[in-house]
C-alpha cells in the first residue's frame, strides 16, 4: 500500500511529462494541455472548496480576470508576457481579497449565489467596457512564441500548465499538513465552534479565497497567452466555474489528487462530446446531469469510495466506561 501510494504518483508524473511525446498528433497534445489546465484550476478551487466547504461557482471570474489582465498588459502596455502574467495574477489576488472579505460573510447557498453574481458582473463589465477590452468582439493577444507553429505552442503550454498544476498540488499538500489547514477544515465542519476555539475564521477564509484565486488567475493568464483570443462570454462563463466544482466533487474534495482525477475524467469527456455532438449545448446538459448524479450518489467522490473504511467502526463505549469505573471510586 505504501509503495503504491508513493510510487503511483511518481509514475503518473513521469507519464504526464512524457505524454506529449507519446501521443500521435498535436490535437491530443492540445487536449492534454486543456485537461492539465482544468486539473490545475480544479486543484486551486479545492484550496477553498475542499478545505472550507465554501462552494464557489464563480471562480471563472478569476480565470477571466487573469486572462484579460495578462492580455491587456501585453497589448495595451507592451509589458513582457512573463511580467504581465505575474502582475495580472497579483492584481486579481488583491481584487479577490476585497471580494473575499464581503463574500465569505455569507455561508452555504448564499455564498454560492454571491459567487455566481461575481462572475456575471465581471462578464458585464468586460463586455461593456468596449474601449478597454474590445467588448464582446473579444481581445486578441499576440503569441509569446511567434517562431513556433501551433503544435509546438500546444507543447510549451502543456508543460506550463503542468508546472502550474504541480505548484497548486504542492501548496494544497502543504496547507493540508499545517495548522492553518486544520483551521480551514474545522471551518468546514463547524465554523462557530472553530471561532470559539480561537480560530480567526474570517482571516482564514479570505486567505484561502485569495490563494485559490491566485492559481486560477495564473491559469487564466496562461490561457490568454496560449489561445491568443479572448471571448468574454467564454472566459467569464458559469460553465468553467462549474467544471472546477464538478471535477473536484467527482474526484473527491478531501483528497490531494481528487480534483486532478476528476479533471482527467471530465475534461476529455467534454472534448469528446464536443467532437461527437458538435457545437451543440448538449454537453452542458451532460455536465449538469453528471454533477447532480455525483452529489446524489457519490458526495465524497471517487477517491473516498476507493479508500473508504469498511463500515464505520463504531468505537465501543465500554473501554472508556471501564476506565471510568476504575478511576471513579
Amino acid at each position, binding site marked *: 500500500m505504501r509503495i503504491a501510494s508513493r510510487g503511483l504518483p511518481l509514475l503518473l508524473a513521469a507519464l504526464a511529462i512524457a505524454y506529449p511525446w507519446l501521443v500521435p498528433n498535436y490535437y491530443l497534445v492540445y487536449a492534454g494541455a486543456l485537461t492539465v489546465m482544468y486539473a490545475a484550476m480544479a486543484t486551486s478551487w479545492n484550496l477553498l472548496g475542499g478545505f472550507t466547504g465554501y462552494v464557489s461557482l464563480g471562480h471563472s471570474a478569476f480565470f477571466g480576470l487573469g486572462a484579460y489582465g495578462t492580455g491587456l498588459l501585453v497589448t495595451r502596455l507592451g509589458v513582457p508576457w512573463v511580467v504581465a502574467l505575474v502582475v495580472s495574477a497579483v492584481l486579481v489576488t488583491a481584487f479577490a481579497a476585497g471580494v473575499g472579505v464581503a463574500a465569505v460573510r455569507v455561508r452555504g447557498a448564499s455564498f454560492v449565489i454571491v459567487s455566481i453574481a461575481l462572475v456575471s458582473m465581471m462578464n458585464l463589465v468586460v463586455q461593456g467596457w468596449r474601449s478597454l477590452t474590445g467588448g464582446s468582439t473579444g481581445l486578441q493577444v499576440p503569441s509569446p512564441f511567434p517562431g513556433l507553429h501551433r503544435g509546438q505552442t500546444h507543447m510549451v503550454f502543456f508543460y506550463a500548465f503542468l508546472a502550474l498544476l504541480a505548484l497548486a498540488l504542492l501548496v494544497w499538500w502543504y496547507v493540508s499538513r499545517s*495548522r492553518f489547514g486544520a483551521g480551514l477544515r474545522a471551518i468546514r465542519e463547524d465554523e*462557530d465552534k472553530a471561532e*470559539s*476555539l*480561537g*480560530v480567526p475564521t474570517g482571516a482564514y477564509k479570505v486567505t484561502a479565497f485569495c490563494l485559490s484565486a491566485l492559481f486560477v488567475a495564473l491559469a487564466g493568464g496562461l490561457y490568454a497567452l496560449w489561445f491568443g483570443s479572448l471571448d468574454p462570454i467564454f472566459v467569464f462563463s458559469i460553465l468553467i466555474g462549474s467544471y472546477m466544482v464538478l471535477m473536484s466533487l467527482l474526484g473527491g474534495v478531501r483528497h490531494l489528487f481528487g480534483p486532478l482525477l476528476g479533471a482527467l475524467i471530465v475534461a476529455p469527456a467534454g472534448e469528446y462530446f464536443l467532437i461527437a455532438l458538435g457545437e451543440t449545448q448538449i454537453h452542458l446538459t451532460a455536465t449538469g446531469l453528471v454533477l447532480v448524479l455525483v452529489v446524489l450518489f457519490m458526495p465524497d467522490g471517487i477517491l473516498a469510495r476507493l479508500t473508504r473504511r469498511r463500515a464505520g467502526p463504531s*468505537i465501543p463505549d465500554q473501554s*472508556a466506561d471501564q476506565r471510568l469505573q476504575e*478511576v471513579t471510586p
Partner: protein
Amino acid sequence: MSSLRTEGLTKAFGGVRAVDGATVELRDGRINGLIGPNGSGKTTFFNIVTGMIRPDAGRVLYRDRDITRHTPHRVAHAGIGRTFQLCRVFPRLTVLENMLVAVRRTRLRELLAGLRDRGEVERARHWLRRMGIEHLEDAEARDLSYGQQKLLELAAVLMAEPDLILLDEPAGGVNPALIDRIAGLVRDLNAEGRTFLVVEHNMDLVMGMCDHVIVFDRGAPIAEGPPSVVREDPRVLEAYLGV
C-alpha cells in the same frame, strides 16, 4: 480579582428580552454555577459573553478589560473558553486533529507550523490522557460515543489554555459514572487555577460542585450565594416552582 464582569447586559429577540439587564460578577478561582428555569437566558448570556451574539446594551469586562463586541476568536484569545449545550466537536476530523484546531495567538509562524508539531501534539496527548480518551486519538470524532465527545470537547477547549471556562450543561445526556468523572475533572482543573461558570440542570451536581451559585430568571440574576443559601432562597423556589 474579578474574572468576568457584566454590566446591564441586554439582548432582545423580537419582542422577547432573553437577557434583560444582567449584571454579574465572577471572582477568580471559583467554580460558579448558573442556574434558572428553561428560557431564563443562561445560554444567551453565554453567547453574549463569548462574542457569538452582540448585546443591545451593556458591557462585558474580563479582567477589567472591555471585551464587549469582540469577535469570538478574540474572546478566546483573551482567555475564555466554552463548551456547547449540545456537545460540538468536528465530526470528520480525528480526535487528535480536533485537539490541534485551537489557536492561542494569531501568529504567522504558528499558523504555518506543521500539524504534527511535536510540542503541540505532546500537549494534545497530555489532555487526552487526562480525559481518559488517549487511545482514541486516530478515530474520527463522529465515531465516538456522546460521552467521549463531551470529554473531547472539553479537552479541545483546554488546548486554548483558557483561564475562564464556560460549560453549558456538562452533565446533559451523559451517564452517572461520567458525570462524576466530569465533576472530578472540573474540580481538579479549578484547583490548578482555572475559573468556571457552569450552566447545569442537574441540581445535585451544581450543589455538590460549585462554590457560588447565580440564579437567573427572565434574563437577569435574581439571587446568588453559596449553594446552601441559594437552595433555601424563596425567590429561587418561586422561579423554579412558580409558587
